């Protein structure tokens, strides 16, 4: 059972969408240029950019929204320190609220916080909190609830997955009766984005038992059967007037991809996540449902380990890179639902993407050249792939096929998904790695490329890279920040430990009756945050 978490940033102009105003909005040119991914914040004043959307018909109230997701776990929980995947996040955004939410450009929009401002060095942010918000049990939202909800992730006993994220926060305190001040150890221009992630849902002060979740979100829990079903009903006291639109959300799981798309087409579910292959065509051709694509920097890569042979052989890594037929992967396997990547984690549509780095592609001559130089000869090279990393099995097969053309003995080993991350990933010379997007590129780089961090699956250590990553997070000047990211990309690109062929878009299927969703690059179905956005046409 692969867990999937989400965050990310990006918009894509590659995919032309002719379906009309009801689906994803095409960003205007101005908005696109202003799109900021990762470490770029808009003007330091933190003024949010709101996209004008073409007006659809007015939302109608009522109906039951049935959602079938592609992952399942009996680990389902409402405890934010333990959130790790899709279903946790969907439940979190339905039952709880956060200080900010992410919009289509991955910018922070006000939610429980009406506004937010940094000081001159971005080491202190003040969030002004909305008045009159109540929890589902009637008690009013107090500053202590917010302080508790954020600081609890620091507790080592809870082992929260967000602990590294709060490491930079030194103090959270009330700044007046309805404001919160967050003090940081080092400057962070991205704090408003980070504080809006799912782990920081606001719970009541002192909560330790999450069996009866009480939040400020649009829905209340009616029925919760971990690993099977969750039924949530409208919170009549929700602080957003008139919302949520639907009466009830039913969340369940259909792991089998064929069964899942059938559920959508037969009407058993109004929304399903993760369509693959021919299912995408099926839904696109159907009259009752449509494809909902979200471009995002999610990827599956083949990563070489820097601390062992033969993956520490640069020429071998280069040979493998030039064996990768990225176009075939994108067109045939991913059905065009993605973006070609260039062996580093920044999307080509991002303003911080360095276009001067030559786009790598399938090149048997170069591959042969590097293979010859590598001295590997007839030794067997093994690549570990798994269903735990989507498309890794297909990537492996494409590589293996091309390898036979240059005489490289490449073999695949498909490992079971269950214990892949604990026993295989990063522990063999070449392993498939899947990384889900984060709200900011800087976060992803900090989690995956700094020396010694747990998710640096290549065990790559470069102090210059470490410094550059920190520098990018604390630099307020936009062009200096962009230049820093260019340097980061070049280091990763040249080192060749990350063979990243394509970014994988989120592809969901939604019934034509469902309206109100916007693609948010953090995850499926509006960045998992559809609870108070979605409405059903009658």
């Amino acid at each position, binding site marked *: 059972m692969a867990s999937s978490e989400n965050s990310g940033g990006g918009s894509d102009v590659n995919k032309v969408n002719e379906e009309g105003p009801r689906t994803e909005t095409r960003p205007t040119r101005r908005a696109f240029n202003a799109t900021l991914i990762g470490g770029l914040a808009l003007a330091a004043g933190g003024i949010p950019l709101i996209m004008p959307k073409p007006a659809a018909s007015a939302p109608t109230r009522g109906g039951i929204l049935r959602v079938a997701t592609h992952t399942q776990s009996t680990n389902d929980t409402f405890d934010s320190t333990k959130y790790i995947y899709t279903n946790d996040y969907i439940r979190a955004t339905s039952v709880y609220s956060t200080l900010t939410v992410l919009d289509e450009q991955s910018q922070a929009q006000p939610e429980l916080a009406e506004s937010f401002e940094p000081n001159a060095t971005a080491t202190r942010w003040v969030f002004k909190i909305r008045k009159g918000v109540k929890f589902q049990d009637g008690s009013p939202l107090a500053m202590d609830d917010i302080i508790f909800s954020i600081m609890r992730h620091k507790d080592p006993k809870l082992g929260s997955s967000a602990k590294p994220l709060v490491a930079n926060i030194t103090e959270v305190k009330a700044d007046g009766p309805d404001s919160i001040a967050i003090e940081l150890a080092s400057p962070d221009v991205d704090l408003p984005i980070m504080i809006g992630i799912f782990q920081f849902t606001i719970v009541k002060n002192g909560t330790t038992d999450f069996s009866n979740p009480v939040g400020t979100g649009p829905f209340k829990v009616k029925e919760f059967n971990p690993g099977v079903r969750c039924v949530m009903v409208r919170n009549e006291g929700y602080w957003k007037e008139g919302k949520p639109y639907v009466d009830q959300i039913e969340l369940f799981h259909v792991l089998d*991809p*064929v069964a899942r*798309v*059938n559920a959508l087409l037969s009407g058993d579910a109004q929304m399903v996540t993760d369509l*693959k*292959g*021919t*299912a995408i*065509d*099926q839904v696109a051709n159907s009259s009752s449902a449509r494809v909902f694509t979200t471009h995002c920097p999610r990827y599956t890569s083949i990563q070489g380990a820097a601390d062992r042979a033969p993956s520490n052989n640069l020429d071998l890594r280069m040979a493998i890179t030039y064996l990768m037929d990225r176009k*075939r992967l994108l*067109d*045939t*396997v991913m059905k065009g639902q993605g973006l070609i990547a260039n062996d580093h984690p920044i999307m080509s549509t991002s303003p911080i993407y360095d276009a001067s780095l030559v786009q790598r592609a399938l090149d048997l001559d170069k591959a042969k050249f590097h293979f010859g130089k590598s001295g590997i000869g007839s030794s067997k090279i093994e690549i570990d*792939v798994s*269903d735990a990393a989507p498309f890794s*099995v*297909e990537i*492996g*097969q*494409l590589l*293996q*096929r091309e390898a*036979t053309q240059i005489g490289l003995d490449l*073999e*695949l*080993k*498909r*490992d*079971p998904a*269950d*214990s892949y991350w604990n026993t295989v990933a990063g522990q063999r010379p070449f392993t498939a790695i899947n990384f889900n997007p984060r709200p900011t590129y800087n976060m992803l780089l900090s989690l995956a490329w700094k020396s010694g961090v747990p998710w640096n699956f290549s065990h790559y250590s470069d102090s210059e890279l470490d410094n550059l990553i920190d520098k990018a997070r604390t630099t307020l000047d936009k062009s200096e920040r962009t230049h820093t990211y260019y340097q980061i990309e070049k280091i990763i690109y040249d080192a060749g430990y990350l063979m990243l062929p394509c970014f994988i878009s989120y592809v969901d299927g939604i019934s034509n009756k469902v309206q109100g969703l916007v693609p948010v690059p953090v995850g499926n179905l509006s960045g998992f945050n559809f609870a108070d956005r979605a409405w059903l046409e009658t």
Partner: protein
Amino acid sequence: MTALEPSAIVQRGPRRQWSLVIGLIVITTSVLIAVFGPFLVQHDPTAFVSSDAFIPSGSTAWLGTDYLGRDLLSRLITGTRITLAMAFAATFFAHILGDTLGLLAAIRGGIADAFISRFVDVLLSLPKIIVGLVVVAALGSSTSILIAVAGIVYASGVFRVARALGADIVVMDFVRAARARGERLPWLLFGEVLPNVALPLATDFALRLSFAILFMSSLSFLGLGIQPPNADWGGLVRENLSGLSAGSLAPIFPALAIAAVTISLNLIVDSLGDRRYQDTRGL
């Protein structure tokens, strides 16, 4: 159960002959394909013949392409060898293990018999497919592990059949006479019992082969088959399943191949075999 009666065992009549003939034709063809596979393929089974997945049958690919744009027919042909070889190996292993233990238990009787029978009961009480899933999850899905798992899983069923067969033979006069003569275990086993159970065990082998094919293709279907890019028939069904909803027949062909071989094995067994000791599919 009534005693051995030759007339009750073999079915005669024209219909039986037809089933036998059809069954033999299919099995022989499959074996020939398995043996001569590499010479029969039009394309390399891992080569990409098209940039489109699931194109319908045509001149480039007689059965169309698979989900990655490879020739389905070539993959089906190479898959024949993989499927049949693995199933045969597993069944062989199951029979070596099960026959030895079963016949020994029948001859020896007593505590050894009781002990082994109990242990086999334990193994039988666990659902086969789940045992298969767990072992493969633990040890990986290499060819040898899959064969070993299928072999052990079906050895229990073979044990029961062999023991039942042996138990019936052992009480007969000629065996009792041999024992009275002072004949030792190896003689009893190979000289007296085995010749009389050879035919029923052989039919069990054929039947067990069909179970093994279904079991291993179910494991492959659930994602625990052999390493890509190789695929047995079950794996071919799994990888191309998404084509079904797009109107492609790609997953149907390997599934039909599975059905054809298992049906043929059953036809052969029906025509020739001893019905009384036949195990069910032991799902």
